């Protein structure tokens, strides 16, 4: 075979090979298109029944894979020469000329008829044009593939009910992450709380750390996070002593009485350590007291013991013993009893601090639980609040805090009647211009307006009033004045009363 003939055949076959590969790719693409579109539609359909993160991205994966496979089919592994020859012979009706010519060339057959055959094949190859290879396209299968594509596009366009669930989940995850941060802050606060005993501090820190770990592991599920929080909350609630509030109140009252007895102004929030120190100082002063003073002290201590007995039995018993000792002239007994009373007050101080920490943790957990529970439902609540605000404006304009029940919201521009100062602090001194008397003197009346009177017509902007009430409620919640099972109600109530609550 003349090399010229072979090169002519080879060159033409290469050109035809490219065209054949393109034709094959088109055919493959048209026949495999339905699989990609079916997967596309299936993923979108499944995504309407179960929440799938990044659904649209996942739905495009089969189509992207199909494109990659088609491109790979086109570009990778070109057709070998003998296969091109076979295909060209078959598709262009070349009657096996190309295949036979290539085989004769590979066998180095130089017979006359072999030369004639290859020359004939070369002449035929010269006349070949790539366009003669018809591009094959399976139109029917491709059209079948368009059906799931159309369904998929429709599913993509129609609103997906799972989107709301996905959004809610995302918000829950954000809320859980936020709660984890809050718990970390709480743990740091507990770690810095010097009033707590070492054992109590470690126990609390460990429990909060465990809770953080659990939340990190179960960030995906609102239910799991709530369950974990509830379990921890129950454990902390079990650590609460229901008599702590009464004990605190009794000891604080004792402290105030001691301050008053010493000529000091009674403190709203007395420090129990100072109370213990006062008792110790009182014990030290016993020797220098006159019998009358001791008798008077005995009576006061007996009275304090009686008042304290309802909250702190131990301290009351020590005070009572001290009073008896003084009454009986047993100075040593009185001194020892006062010392024990001081120790008892210190112990109570630690217990109360522990209970406060537990209470604070419990309060934080309840807040966290509310945040997680409300995550993703703010839109609905906002709508409800807006409706409530409208109801409140229509039905109870100028009626103060916005009424009860459904009409909870209040606008910031409203003014309300403020019956008392919820903080318990005394009001500022007010001076009222008096009338000039007959003798030319001016009558001046000085008073305090803690209770301004029933008919006081002054109205205060709601936005100024609410923080005082909210602060008072928050302190009450922190101090445990509110029974645990009612705290949620109190929080919800003040949440609804918050200025601007319910506004879009």
């Amino acid at each position, binding site marked *: 075979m003349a090399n010229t003939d072979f090169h002519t055949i080879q060159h033409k076959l290469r050109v035809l090979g490219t065209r054949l590969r393109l034709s094959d790719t088109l055919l493959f693409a048209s026949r495999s298109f339905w699989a990609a579109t079916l997967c596309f539609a299936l993923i979108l359909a499944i995504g309407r029944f179960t929440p799938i993160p990044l659904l649209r991205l996942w739905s495009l994966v089969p189509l992207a894979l199909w494109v990659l496979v088609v491109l790979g089919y086109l570009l990778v592994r070109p057709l070998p020469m003998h296969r091109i020859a*076979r295909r060209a012979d*078959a598709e262009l009706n070349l009657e*096996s000329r190309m*295949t*036979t010519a290539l*085989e004769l060339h590979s066998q180095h*057959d130089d017979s006359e*008829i072999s030369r004639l055959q290859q020359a*004939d094949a070369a002449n035929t190859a010269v006349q070949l044009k790539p366009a003669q290879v018809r591009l094959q396209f399976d139109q029917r299968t491709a059209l079948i593939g368009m059906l799931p594509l159309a369904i998929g596009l429709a599913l993509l366009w129609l609103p997906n009910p799972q989107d709301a669930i996905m959004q809610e989940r995302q918000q829950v995850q954000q809320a859980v992450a936020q709660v984890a941060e809050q718990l970390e802050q709480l743990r740091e606060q507990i770690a810095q709380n010097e009033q707590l005993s070492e054992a109590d501090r470690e126990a609390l820190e460990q429990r909060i750390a465990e809770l953080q770990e659990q939340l990190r592991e179960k960030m995906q599920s609102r239910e799991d996070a709530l369950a974990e929080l509830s379990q921890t909350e129950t454990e902390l609630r079990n650590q609460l002593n229901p008599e702590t509030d009464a004990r605190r109140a009794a000891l604080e009252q004792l402290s105030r009485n001691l301050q008053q007895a010493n000529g000091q102004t009674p403190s709203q929030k007395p420090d129990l350590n100072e109370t213990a120190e006062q008792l110790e100082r009182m014990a030290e002063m016993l020797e220098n007291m006159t019998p009358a003073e001791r008798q008077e002290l005995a009576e006061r201590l007996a009275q304090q013991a009686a008042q304290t007995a309802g909250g702190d039995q131990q301290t009351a018993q020590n005070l009572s013993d001290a009073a008896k000792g003084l009454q009986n002239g047993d100075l040593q007994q009185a001194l020892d009893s006062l010392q024990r009373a001081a120790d008892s007050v210190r112990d109570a101080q630690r217990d109360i601090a522990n209970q406060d920490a537990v209470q604070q943790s419990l309060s934080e957990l309840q807040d966290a639980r509310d945040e997680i529970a409300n995550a993703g439902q703010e839109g609905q609540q906002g709508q409800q609040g807006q409706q409530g605000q409208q109801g409140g404006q229509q039905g109870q304009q100028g009626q103060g805090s916005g009424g009860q029940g459904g009409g909870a919201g209040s606008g910031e521009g409203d003014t309300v009647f403020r019956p008392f100062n919820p903080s318990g602090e005394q009001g500022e001194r007010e001076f009222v211009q008096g009338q000039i008397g007959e003798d030319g003197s001016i009558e001046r009346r000085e008073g305090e307006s803690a209770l301004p009177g029933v008919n006081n017509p002054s109205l205060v902007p709601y936005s100024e009033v609410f923080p005082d009430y909210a602060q008072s409620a928050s302190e009450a919640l922190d101090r445990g004045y509110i029974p645990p099972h009612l705290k949620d109600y109190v929080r919800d109530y003040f949440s609804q009363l918050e200025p601007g609550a319910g506004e879009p």
Partner: protein
Amino acid sequence: MTIPPQPPMPPQHPQSPMPPQPPMAPQPRMTPEEFRQRTFAIEAEVGQVIVGQRELIRQTVVTLLAGGNALLEGVPGLAKTTLVRTLADVIDCSFSRIQFTPDLMPADIVGTTLINEDEHGRKAFRFEPGPIFANLVLADEINRATPKTQSALLEAMQERTVTVAKTIHRLSTPFFVLATQNPLEMEGTYPLPEAQLDRFLFKVNVSFPSTAELVEIANRTTGNRAPQPRKVANSAMIMEMQTLARTVPIGSHLLNYAARLISATHPETKEAPPITRQYIRYGASPRGMQAIILAGKILALLDNRYNVDFKDLKAAALPALRHRCILNFEAQAEGVSADEILLGILEAVREE
């Protein structure tokens, strides 16, 4: 003892996809174009005598050029004898006709040894050749002779030699037997066994002419002018043409296709299509594949090509395989012909 020349057979070469040419094979002096022109001339001259029957003429000529023998099956009066006689005239070869009858003996075909007395009175054995010693032999109604006589002819067809009295006599070349058999009147006949049918390269069905052809036959044969065909070839040319035909290249995928085609006629093979399993008892032999390929090469040359194509093999498949496939009882009961089954097989076997 004389040894007949063996036809050049390609040696087996498992590594090569194409059968390489034999190293000492004679190179044909005839060109493919001359081959084609000469063949067309032969067909044209025969066609002057034989009306219509293009396929019959083509397949007979192909059998001649392939160096094979043909079995013609058709009712009497379809110009089978005329065909062979005309062909012999056109290629300028000797012709003899043997009418097979039940009492025909092998010596009547191959010849016999006689005691001959010369002018000096000395007696000696002399071989008297039978009618088989001709280039073209017409074995008319071959199925009417006994198997013993049939065997004598079939041995000559296969070996191209005749053995009489321990002496092997080589037959003249080219040697071409055209046997006929009548599909009707099977009473008292001796159907050829499968092994002997396999010796025929082609089995050609001679169809009844159309009305127009009948009119033309009437015109040619009932007038006072008989067509006189010219001699357009001779025995040497036929031998050259036979040599050239074997040199036509064939691709490995075509050889593979021919092999798969033969395998598909065997019901026990995995390549067998359902129609084979349903109707064929035993499939074609390797001689069938050789027949397809050889005929395919000739058909390729006649199609002005220098290589074999699928269509050549397909065109040769029916006449080459129809007598080599043994049908089962179901096919015979349902009246399914071998051609119908072979067409089904051709459709089932893929070209790839």
